[in-house]
């Protein structure tokens, strides 16, 4: 005879305001199997847990029902209380009377109380059929996959590798470095981006525990936490990296000119190229979309000038497979295209550029040698208008979020402009100055006081051309008057948007993303680097806009999570997995088709005892099974049961209401 204990929680006022908790306790006491029922203000607190532990011993309980919040929140807490009292933790049932009753039925207290009573009755009925379950241990492949070689990926890879865990770093472009490699100086200290980044890039290339696979993409990920299998497509570079010395003869002679992505298309690169001089690896690749030889079969100059004979036009894409235990996603960000701002004349006026283009111009290794120039006539601009929140915080343009970094980099641009063109003046149209960070407010003040950058509060309403000037019209809300600035150059701080490939990558990895395309974390506050899928972590702007210090911190957090995951040789796993009754299995294999985790295979067993004839039945890999229950639902002979959710348990629940 089962002896059930029922513990009903007030959850402060969360439950007690709308559900009459004592009534629920009284209802529970009416059930025959319930030997003990009590309520408490906070069941999850230590005194609350002590009540459970004491009752288990005193009343010789055989299963426990806690009526409180969602099991997502505190199931683990209560399970631990059970095992502390010497009871199998899986004899616990949680009746969710907060999310499922008090929060959603705030207008009708009686109905909420009745429903809470029903939920408790169901949980008690289910718990009677509960069985003792034991955690499953699965082996762990101690290798991490880092997707993206920007500062986030670099930092995560280095931190994981420093813990002597092998890392595979996959980068889409020919070189690691990402957006940070494009920056000139970084706020708030104005230290040169290259100077702090390139040593890290070199470390990645030379680290014994890091395998760097540039110019490649992840195309498939199978398996589960600790036991993933990744397929990586290494794009054909048409250059043999082993023999290539990176001398540069090939790209000097190449006749094809293509807009240079590294310099935001301000200048041209060749069809065979390294993205920038400090690239890692510093070996060129051939851009197959533009190479004349690969397109038309003519030219071949690079092969002729290469002394090492490293050019190989017959090279094919290569598929690399790696077994890994955890994934860090760090795919970075892109700049929003400001075309929808027709009132600014984006696309019509050449002298309107975005911030990353300005960044490349003022960069000492940039296309203009560090001097800002008007794209229209190459003149050095004297009056530069910076417009913040272009796209960001604009509901009409579909981007409601704040891009977070624009306030700071615009202040930086004002300072850099002053450094490069001493007699220039920056006018900055802003909505708010968001400078929350160590040394950030001081940095903005520096821009205002030292360089005399004029901050005008208001959104620009329109930009039009007058002679060779651009007239920028907006309101200065500080004096309540319309102002018009005669500008030589206009720089738009366009919104930071997630990488275009994020939705496709999210589907490939089996993780979720938000309406903007940012990958979603498991919990916005308490689990900011994990995803809902175990063993997949997020670093940097792939999750939300971030500055460099925050990105590095998140990347290191990812590394800590990965190291924690790999701390033992095996991993503990919940025992809620499916089992097949071979007697009933008809071998239809419908379950194999519906399993989203490829956890079901088939095996041949003898038809009867000692029989030589064989029949096919399903077999479940406990390590892979995530307990989703799809196979249980599809099985027509009811041969599959999910531990913790067996047929008797479910039927008991249904009978109870």
């Amino acid at each position, binding site marked *: 005879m089962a002896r059930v204990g029922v513990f009903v929680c007030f959850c402060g006022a969360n439950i007690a305001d709308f559900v009459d908790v004592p009534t629920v306790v009284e209802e529970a006491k009416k059930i025959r199997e319930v030997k003990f029922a009590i309520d408490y203000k906070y069941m999850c607190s230590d005194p609350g847990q002590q009540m459970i532990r004491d009752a288990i011993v005193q009343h010789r309980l055989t299963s426990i029902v806690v009526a409180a919040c969602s099991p997502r929140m505190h199931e683990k807490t209560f399970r631990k209380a059970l095992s502390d009292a010497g009871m199998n933790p899986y004899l616990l049932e949680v009746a969710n009377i907060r999310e499922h009753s008090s929060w959603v039925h705030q207008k009708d207290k009686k109905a909420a109380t009745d429903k809470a009573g029903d939920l408790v009755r169901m949980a008690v009925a289910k718990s009677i059929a509960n069985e003792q379950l034991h955690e499953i241990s699965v082996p762990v492949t101690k290798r991490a996959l880092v997707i993206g070689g920007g500062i986030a990926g670099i930092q995560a890879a280095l931190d994981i590798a420093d813990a002597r865990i092998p890392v595979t770093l996959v980068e889409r472009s020919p070189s690691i470095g990402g957006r940070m490699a494009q920056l000139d100086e970084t706020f708030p200290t104005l230290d040169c981006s290259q100077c702090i980044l390139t040593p890290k890039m070199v470390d990645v290339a030379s680290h014994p525990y890091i395998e760097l696979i540039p110019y490649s993409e992840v195309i498939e990920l199978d398996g589960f936490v600790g036991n993933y299998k990744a397929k990586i497509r290494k794009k054909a570079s048409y250059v043999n990296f082993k023999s290539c010395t990176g001398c540069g003869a090939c790209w000097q002679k190449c006749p094809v000119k293509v807009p240079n992505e590294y310099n935001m298309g301000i200048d041209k690169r060749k069809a065979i190229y390294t993205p920038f001089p400090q690239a890692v690896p510093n070996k060129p690749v051939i851009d197959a979309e533009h190479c004349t030889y690969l397109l038309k079969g003519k030219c071949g100059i690079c092969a002729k000038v290469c002394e090492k004979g490293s050019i190989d036009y017959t090279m094919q894409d290569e598929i690399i497979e790696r077994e890994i235990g955890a994934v860090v996603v760090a795919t970075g960000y892109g700049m929003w295209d400001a075309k929808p701002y027709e009132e600014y004349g984006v696309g019509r006026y050449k002298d309107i550029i975005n911030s990353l283009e300005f960044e490349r111009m003022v960069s000492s290794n940039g296309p203009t040698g560090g001097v800002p120039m008007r794209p229209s006539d190459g003149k050095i601009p004297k009056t530069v208008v910076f417009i913040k929140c272009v796209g960001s915080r604009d509901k009409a343009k579909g981007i409601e979020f704040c891009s977070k970094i624009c306030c700071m980099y615009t202040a930086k641009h004002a300072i850099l402009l002053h450094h490069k063109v001493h007699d220039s003046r920056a006018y900055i149209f802003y909505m708010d100055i968001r400078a929350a960070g160590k040394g950030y407010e001081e940095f903005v003040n520096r821009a205002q*006081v030292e360089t*005399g950058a004029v901050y005008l509060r208001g959104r620009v309403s329109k930009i039009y051309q007058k002679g060779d000037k651009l007239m920028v019209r907006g309101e*200065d809300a500080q004096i309540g*008057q*319309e*102002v018009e600035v005669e500008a030589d150059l206009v720089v738009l701080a366009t919104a930071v948007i997630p990488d275009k490939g994020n939705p496709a990558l999210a589907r490939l990895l089996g993780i979720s993303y938000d309406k903007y395309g940012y990958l979603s974390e498991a919990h916005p506050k308490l689990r900011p680097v994990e995803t809902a899928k175990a063993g997949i972590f997020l670093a940097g702007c792939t999750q939300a806009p971030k500055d460099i210090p925050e990105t590095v911190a998140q990347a290191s957090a990812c590394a800590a999570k990965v190291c924690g995951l790999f701390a033992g040789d095996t991993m503990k796993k919940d025992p809620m997995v499916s089992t097949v009754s071979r007697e009933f299995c008809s071998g239809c294999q419908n379950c194999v088709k519906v399993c989203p985790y490829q956890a079901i295979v088939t095996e041949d067993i003898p038809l009867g005892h000692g029989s030589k004839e064989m029949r096919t039945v399903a077999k479940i890999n406990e390590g892979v099974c995530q307990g989703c229950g799809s196979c249980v639902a599809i099985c027509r002979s009811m041969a599959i049961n999910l531990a913790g959710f067996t047929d008797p348990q479910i039927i008991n629940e249904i009978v109870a209401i």
Partner: protein
Amino acid sequence: MITLSYQGKNTFLEAVNKKSGADVLECYQCGKCVSTCPVSNFMDFPPREIMQMIKLGLKEETQMANSMWFCLTCSACSGRCPREIDIPAVMEAVRHIAIEENYHSDNKQVKNIRKFHEIFLDMIKRYGRNYELRMMAEFNIRTRNLFKDMHLAPKALLKGKIPLGVKSMKSAKAIRKMYEMADKLEKQNK
């Protein structure tokens, strides 16, 4: 509509900063000065807006405002300014520039205030201290408002609040000398 075109240096801002010893660029437009100021309600541009106009280099607009003439130099604003700007000094600098460069507002109140200042300085120059009765009389004559506040005169006189004459001062000579030196310096600077 204000048009901001390239002017190289913001000379107006630099002149104000130099004269006042304050740095107008420090202002971050919080508006604490405005809510502190006892007379900001009477100003056409409260102190915060004056700061922004100086930043933008709007010299004409700033000089034509009545704000700096209404400023009482009570220093309540600078006492509370989170950016430690000496706002009364900035107002004074703007006043000085208005006088030096002959900006004249049509506003009658501004005209009266300027006359008041002139008469006051004249009194100090003559007597070394303020001769109140004469000052009042001169102000009423020059502003063509002879009987202004006249109803208060009998009571004030009887109570001895307004002395009929002016007591001689030992340092009157020294003060006159200061005026002469100031004149000399001004000519030199020009």
